């Protein structure tokens, strides 16, 4: 057997607005009566979108393939088709062996049930047989580090505990093919590392893994080849480093410092659309899609809660050009936090001379009421940091040591 996964001419078409406009049986029936012959054909003038278009792909057994592309490019759709969650419009896929998908952490968890009960439930939903769960139960519990809370309902768990347990169940799946989508975007850094390590272990154990992530570091370290998907088409296939460069080069899109957040594609699923606009201004208070190294800038986020009011707390997370979390700031952590309530307004956050290396950075925004996050937008804005002679030496720090630089003083003691 040469390939464990063979994808031929795979296409998937969605009708635009399909998710929002519910059908009603009444409309369908009246349409059927009026136009009996056309009732089953799509509504006139409906718009279609190809989430996948003629994708061909072969994956060798034991390969770890990274899927790279921006939001909405079709990466997740491809995984969902391979996972049999959604059906392709045309084309064919051949998969050898058991397929398990990990598209979300905590699939099948029920809040009212205890940790122990959820291990069995979630395990079964993810595709494990009862006997397999029993056999691995102790390992799952040990990996999650939760043995004291096994009989507590998971609704009382902290979010960290919840994620640990959920990932632990998923990590013990033993399929021949594992499909992983961005599940590592949750949990604290230490646990993320543990998860990546586990995925690496799974991959090294000879399983075939397809891995979607916006985190280029994870992609680069885990995968042995990569594909780049854009507009539903597979446009490149090759070694990770090459594909990532290709991707970053295509997508260093500059937003010119201002972007409307209404209908932003990076808004997370359960968010209410409260934030309306984000703007980045440079030292001279000019809207700008780029700042120089070491230049102070401000990020202004406007929000509109309609008729309700809140004490806005704004979290801003900066991601490095590779998609790694770099730093986070929040107004409620600050001494001069203004806790007055308002319905609409703009919060301005000023970052004093951040020591960022040249490259394209993105900003995630979290707007909450001080207790929970109401609106979360990932990749709300991207901006470019341009090189500048920050040390006055005519030399730039070397880029390969990470996304920040730091002024340092060196002294040489001549001891000859």
């Amino acid at each position, binding site marked *: *057997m040469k390939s464990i996964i063979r994808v031929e001419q*795979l296409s998937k078409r969605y009708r635009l607005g*399909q*998710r929002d406009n*519910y*059908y*009603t*049986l*009444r409309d*369908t029936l009246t349409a059927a009566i009026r136009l009996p012959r056309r009732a089953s054909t799509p509504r006139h003038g409906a718009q279609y979108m190809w989430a996948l278009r003629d994708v061909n792909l072969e994956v060798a057994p*034991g*390969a770890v393939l990274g899927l790279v592309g921006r939001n909405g490019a079709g990466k997740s759709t491809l995984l*969902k088709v391979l996972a*049999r*969650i959604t*059906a*392709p419009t*045309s*084309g*064919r*896929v*051949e*998969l*050898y*062996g058991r*397929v398990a*998908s990990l*598209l*979300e952490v905590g*699939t*099948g968890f*029920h809040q*009212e*049930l205890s940790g122990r*009960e959820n291990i*069995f*439930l979630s395990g*079964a*939903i*993810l*595709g494990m*047989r*009862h006997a397999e769960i029993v056999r691995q139960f102790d390992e799952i519990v040990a990996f999650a580090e939760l043995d004291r809370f096994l009989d507590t309902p998971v609704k009382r768990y902290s979010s960290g505990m919840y994620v640990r347990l959920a990932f632990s169940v998923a990590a013990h799946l033993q399929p*021949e093919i594992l499909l992983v989508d961005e599940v590592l975007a949750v949990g604290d850094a230490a646990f993320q*590392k543990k998860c990546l390590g586990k995925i690496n272990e799974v991959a090294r154990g*000879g399983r075939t893994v397809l891995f979607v992530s916006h985190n280029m*570091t*994870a992609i*680069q*370290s885990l995968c*042995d080849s990569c594909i780049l998907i854009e507009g539903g088409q597979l446009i490149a296939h090759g070694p*990770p*480093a090459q594909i990532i460069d290709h991707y970053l080069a295509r997508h260093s899109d500059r937003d010119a410092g201002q972007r409307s957040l209404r209908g932003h594609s990076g808004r997370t699923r359960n968010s209410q659309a409260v934030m309306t606009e984000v703007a980045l201004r440079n030292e001279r208070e000019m809207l700008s899609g780029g700042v120089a190294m070491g230049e102070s800038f401000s990020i202004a986020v406007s929000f509109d809660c309609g008729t309700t009011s809140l004490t806005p707390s704004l979290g801003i997370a900066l991601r490095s050009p590779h998609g*790694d979390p*770099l730093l986070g700031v929040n107004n409620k952590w600050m001494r001069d936090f203004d806790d007055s309530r308002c319905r609409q307004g703009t919060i301005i956050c000023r970052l004093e001379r951040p020591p960022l290396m040249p490259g394209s950075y993105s900003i995630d925004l979290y707007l909450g009421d001080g207790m929970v996050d109401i609106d979360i937008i990932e990749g709300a804005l991207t901006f470019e940091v341009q090189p500048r002679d920050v040390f006055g030496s005519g030399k730039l720090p*070397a880029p*390969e*040591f*990470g996304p*920040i630089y730091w002024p340092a003083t060196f002294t040489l003691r001549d001891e000859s």
Partner: protein
Amino acid sequence: MLSPLVDHNSVLMNRLEAEDADFGSSPAQGRSRSETVTLPMLPLLVIDGGRAWARIDWHDLWGHRDLFYFLAWRDVKVRYKQTVLGVLWVVLQPLLTMAVFTLLFGRLAHLPSDGLPYAIFSYCGLLAWNFFNAAVGTSSNSLLVSSNLLTKVYFPRLLLPAASVAATLVDFLIAALLLLGLLPWYGIALRPKMLLLPALGLIDALAALSVGLGLSALMVKYRDVRYALPFALQLWMFLTPVIYPTSFVPSRFRWLLLLNPLTGIIQAFRAAIAGRPLPWLPLALTVSTIAALLVASASIFQRMEREFADLI
């Protein structure tokens, strides 16, 4: 400690030896996955686009039997955990309905009751009807309430409505045991024929599945079904001999009543309790109606299954 990026990599790659001694090199370089993986004969799975019609994959369903059990178990567990009254509620509901029906239709309206005490007569009807009603309700909604599963993981979707019906069987069992407890009170002796009750309950479950299966699929696409269903079920109850016997209906319309699969089941329940011979003809009609409905429901379900994740 150099910078977050390098640190991150080195932790990630602790298994990958020290081949990236040069900081500048990407950790993936110099890495080879040369170990050839020899796989034993693995089952082939083919996903074919554009195939509008899929048959039920019995093999796949059987492979997921553990999941069927866990889904039903979850529904039972959660239901009894969340309600304060728990089991008491399952007992009180039919008892109170029986009391009200007996007062209104037995005492005041003097409806005939086929030789059984009216309370037992109506309880038999309620036992079959309440189970059917609850099972149709939960199984019809089963896909919608599990939308988070449908969009995240594969399993045979048929398990959701089927497990909902199975979970409702627990309520039925409790209510049936209560009936057996009530019988001596009304001077009715326990008979061997009453051992048929579980079999009749199973037929009742199939009747609920035959309706709920198709409705659950329709409900994903047509949201108005959700609002029409409770009303339709309410009407259905009056077209079912729950509070009146079939003999109450003029004989030229009685065949209409027999189209309703519940008629045969309820008649059989009462016959088993009263020790009368089973109504074989209505029962046979019931079973064939259920079989026809099941086939229709399953074909609606299979046809729409491909779209669930996109529509929900």
